[in-house]
């Protein structure tokens, strides 16, 4: 089937649909960030995977095929008539790479949320996006305003490419979450070599 040639269907005026992934460890505030900027309460969608689709150990000989339900929370922001941005929280468990592939397909980029008290929790997300070549930024969610490490220390600890933006945020706050998304979009643009005049965040 022809999925790519959607231009032919432009008789119906369809908005351009785009998506950004919000990744990070369990409990780091992914759904909180989605809720802070989404125009609706975050929605939940599920995918049912048979264990064959999940990266677990060999199940040869196991007769009963079990299934796993993986939930993903997402939100949307509509800009006028012609642009819709979807924000998808990635399933927290590292073993559902199959689903990550599905979510990452066609995504503009990703935000990796980090908690400095459990920094290692975001390693798998970073590894994944680096492997996929999907642009991402790291946003350190400041729980209770606790700021234990400098951004440079986080950048070092995560062994990030110096081009990858690292910023502080408060995922509960709309303004802060907006800045996270704007920073990601600017980073993606920069990677495309399309930035004409770099803007200062918060200007």
């Amino acid at each position: 089937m022809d999925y790519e040639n959607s231009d032919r269907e432009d008789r119906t005026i369809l908005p351009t649909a785009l998506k950004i992934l919000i990744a990070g460890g369990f409990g780091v505030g992914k759904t909180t960030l989605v809720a802070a900027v989404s125009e609706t309460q975050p929605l939940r969608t599920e995918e049912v995977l048979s264990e064959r689709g999940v990266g677990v150990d060999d199940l040869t000989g196991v007769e009963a095929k079990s299934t796993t339900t993986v939930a993903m929370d997402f939100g949307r922001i509509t800009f006028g008539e012609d642009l819709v941005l979807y924000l998808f929280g990635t399933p927290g468990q590292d073993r559902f790479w199959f689903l990550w592939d599905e979510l990452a397909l066609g995504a503009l980029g990703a935000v990796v949320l980090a908690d400095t008290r459990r920094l290692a929790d975001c390693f798998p997300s970073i590894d994944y996006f680096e492997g996929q070549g999907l642009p991402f930024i790291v946003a350190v969610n400041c729980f209770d305003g606790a700021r234990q490490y400098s951004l440079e220390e986080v950048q070092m600890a995560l062994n990030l490419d110096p081009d990858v933006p690292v910023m502080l945020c408060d995922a509960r706050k709309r303004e802060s979450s907006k800045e996270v998304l704007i920073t990601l979009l600017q980073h993606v643009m920069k990677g495309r070599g399309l930035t004409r005049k770099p803007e200062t965040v918060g200007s």
Partner: protein
Amino acid sequence: MTRPDAEPLWVDDEAGPVVRPYAMTRGRARPRNGFNVISLVTATRAAPPIDVGLVPEHARIIELCQRPLALAEVAAHLHLPLGTVRVLLDDLVARQLVQVSEPRPPATLPDDSVFEALIHGLREL
């Protein structure tokens, strides 16, 4: 209390929909399409036709998609797994009752106008 070999007691929401997704799709677990979660689904007509081949969920999709709705939104509103909705969309596309528009790959965006519109729109929120 519970014996380890006892059937789990599923009541109310735990039991899921009365018609299980597999029954809805007549046992088809695998969709033919690989629609993106943000593919936009639009109904081609106002009301579902009377068609012996359709189940109520097909009709619900047509009702929901009078305005374009992403696959993930359709699934969330119907409380059905994405895979089940993809199978149902196969049926509806085959009957030309919905159109599904796949998202444009970001790498093919011709310029940065979409990014600028998003950044501007976010600032205005």
